[in-house]
């Protein structure tokens, strides 16, 4: 009977892996469907023939030229930016929830969004920048500086008080409030900046947020994803508690810094490319845990895929529900995300009871 146990364990592991792979294929297929919808659906109805001809090249006719411009200059770039931003935000959310052991943690808790917002507002107000590509490095730099400040305070507080990740969350909340207040002051004094900032802040994939904006920060997103995926086993150890993680040979401070670096790269890049898109980092990890379970080895890649699907589909929805105008993807996700967030809270409350 003794050999039976390893065989059973191996069989169980193999079954679980096959199940995870099947889910990965399913969400991958969902992403392909979302991309197809992202290219085919919009506020301007185009015939499939014109779309295909537009994709192959313009024949000089107005209809095909229009279709080509809509497909290649509008829908394709925003779909790619949506994939990148959705994947980055969802993985960053999973990292934050793993590091803080707080299921309601969000990348915004690190102050990244507030830092990016303040930097963008100052870039508009002081330097006169007016386009997303102009804000790009300010958004990214502001996000990085804010994350560094929060991390420094979080680690300092943890050293003096305890090693609970709650210190990091509190530091993030304080820094976010402070940066938000400064941003508010600048906007109160400069309404012209407010006019421009609101377009950035709303979280949008429409014109101005195209591949010219994405390409410069793409390396940071890729590095962030690589760090995150390589960080999965550490997150699994941290999920058992700091003491257990130490007992398993993990060094907490370097682990946290690595995780926060990945979050900064991912959220800073996403915010720079698409503005402030909320709820993805909060909701997607919860949704994905129902599929993968709590292990981060499968959770993180699935978050990347599902986050991309969610943002692209939300963008498609935003293009059609108020046609011929559009709703920015950040607004659509807020409208959808808030009820989902409430459901999550109620379910957590129910599970505690």
């Amino acid at each position, binding site marked *: 009977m003794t050999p039976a146990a390893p065989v059973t364990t191996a069989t169980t592991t193999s079954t679980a892996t096959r199940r995870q792979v099947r889910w990965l294929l399913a969400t991958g297929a969902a992403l392909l469907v979302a991309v197809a919808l992202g290219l085919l659906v*919009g*506020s*301007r109805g185009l015939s499939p023939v014109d779309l295909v001809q537009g994709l192959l090249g313009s024949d000089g006719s*107005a209809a095909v*030229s*229009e279709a*080509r*411009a*809509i497909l290649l*200059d*509008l*829908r394709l770039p925003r779909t790619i930016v949506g994939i990148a931003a959705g994947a980055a935000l969802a993985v960053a959310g999973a990292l934050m929830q793993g590091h803080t052991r707080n299921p309601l943690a969000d990348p915004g808790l690190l102050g990244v969004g507030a830092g990016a917002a303040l930097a963008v507002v100052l870039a508009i107000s002081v330097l*006169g*920048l*007016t*386009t*997303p590509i*102009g804000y790009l490095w300010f958004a990214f730099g502001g996000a990085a500086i804010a994350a560094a400040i929060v991390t420094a305070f979080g680690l300092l507080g943890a050293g003096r008080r305890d090693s609970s990740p709650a210190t990091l969350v509190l530091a993030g909340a304080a820094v976010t409030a402070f940066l938000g207040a400064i941003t508010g002051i600048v906007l*109160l*004094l400069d*309404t*012209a900046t*407010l*006019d*421009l900032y*609101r*377009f950035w802040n709303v979280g*949008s994939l*429409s*014109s*101005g947020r195209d591949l010219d904006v994405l390409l410069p920060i793409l390396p940071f997103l890729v590095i962030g994803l690589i760090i995150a995926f390589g960080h999965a086993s550490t997150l699994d150890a941290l999920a058992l508690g700091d003491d257990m993680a130490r007992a398993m040979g993990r060094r907490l401070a370097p682990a946290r810094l690595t995780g926060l670096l990945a979050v900064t790269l991912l959220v800073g890049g996403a915010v720079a490319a698409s503005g402030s898109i909320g709820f993805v980092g909060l909701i997607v990890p919860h949704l994905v845990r129902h599929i993968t379970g709590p292990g981060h080895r499968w959770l993180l890649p699935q978050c990347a895929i599902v986050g991309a699907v969610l943002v692209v589909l939300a963008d498609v929805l935003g*293009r059609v529900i108020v*046609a*011929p*105008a*559009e709703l*920015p993807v950040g607004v659509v996700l807020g409208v959808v995300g808030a009820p989902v967030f409430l459901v999550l809270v109620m379910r957590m409350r129910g599970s505690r009871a």
Partner: protein
Amino acid sequence: MPKSAAFARPHRTLFVTAAVATFALALTGCSAAGADDTAAEGRTVSTEFGDVVIPATIDSVVVLEGRRDLDIALALDLPVVGIPTMDNAEDRAIEPPLAAAIAAAEDNGAEEIFLEDEVNLEAIAEVAPSLILSRNSDIEPIFDELSAIAPVLSVHSHGDMVSWQDDLLFVAEATGTEDTAADIIAEYDARVAEIADTYAEQIAATPVAAVVYNDEGTSVQSTRLMSAALFAVGALPSEIFAASSELVDEGIESSPEQTFDIFDDAGALIVSVETDEAWAGLEDDQLWAQLPAVQAGNVVRTDKMTNEGGPITAMAALELVEQLYAGL
């Protein structure tokens, strides 16, 4: 006006109102007494907020919004002493129509006394104006507090379906400047007639539209001052521009994907773009570049400062209309 500002204004205004309520109420006694003193020699005007007694002599005027209200006050040569903080003219890509008039008013003592969209009752009380003038939606939530400081007159915004001419005549009647107002309207009408006559052929033959462009797409609204100037000269509206005149209170907003489809019948366009970078972005927009009006070079640029205003801005809008048709 940005939507966010529109949504935020009532909340901010309520906050300001609450913060200075005690101060304003304390002022009520002495200021109301002042109004009573002038009542005998002033004129009573019926407004949408009730009868208001305007002093016979107006020494100082505060405006709250800085668009149609300020435009009318400056056009009527009222002694403006307090205005909101405005965007610096030198910071804008296009000089605002009111820039010169505001500079002249500032030379005569007008000062920026509170932030745009952030009415400060204490600052207004400090100036002790003889008249407060602003848009009705700004006045409504704080009418009592404002009335405690000085008589209040309201004008409208373009979405209210009240023309600047009507508001001009209303303010003129209240301030005893009817002759000036009549001259202004006559001058505007003469300019309209001149353009309509000079470019009658182009006007009749060329569908046009006045468009606002930003990162989120385009919008067309027939009540904007720029649109009204086009309609005034008898412009032949493009299909979307004509459709917008049936949706006067909201206009038509369209996504970037719609740009070619909705403006491809226009032979000439007046487009409102805020910054040089946004203008460069528009010129790079492949859908925009395919438009017949763009390919023919029949595009005149303006910005949001011609969306709303009074007679000074309206005359500036007519200049743009003439520029459009002169280029055809």
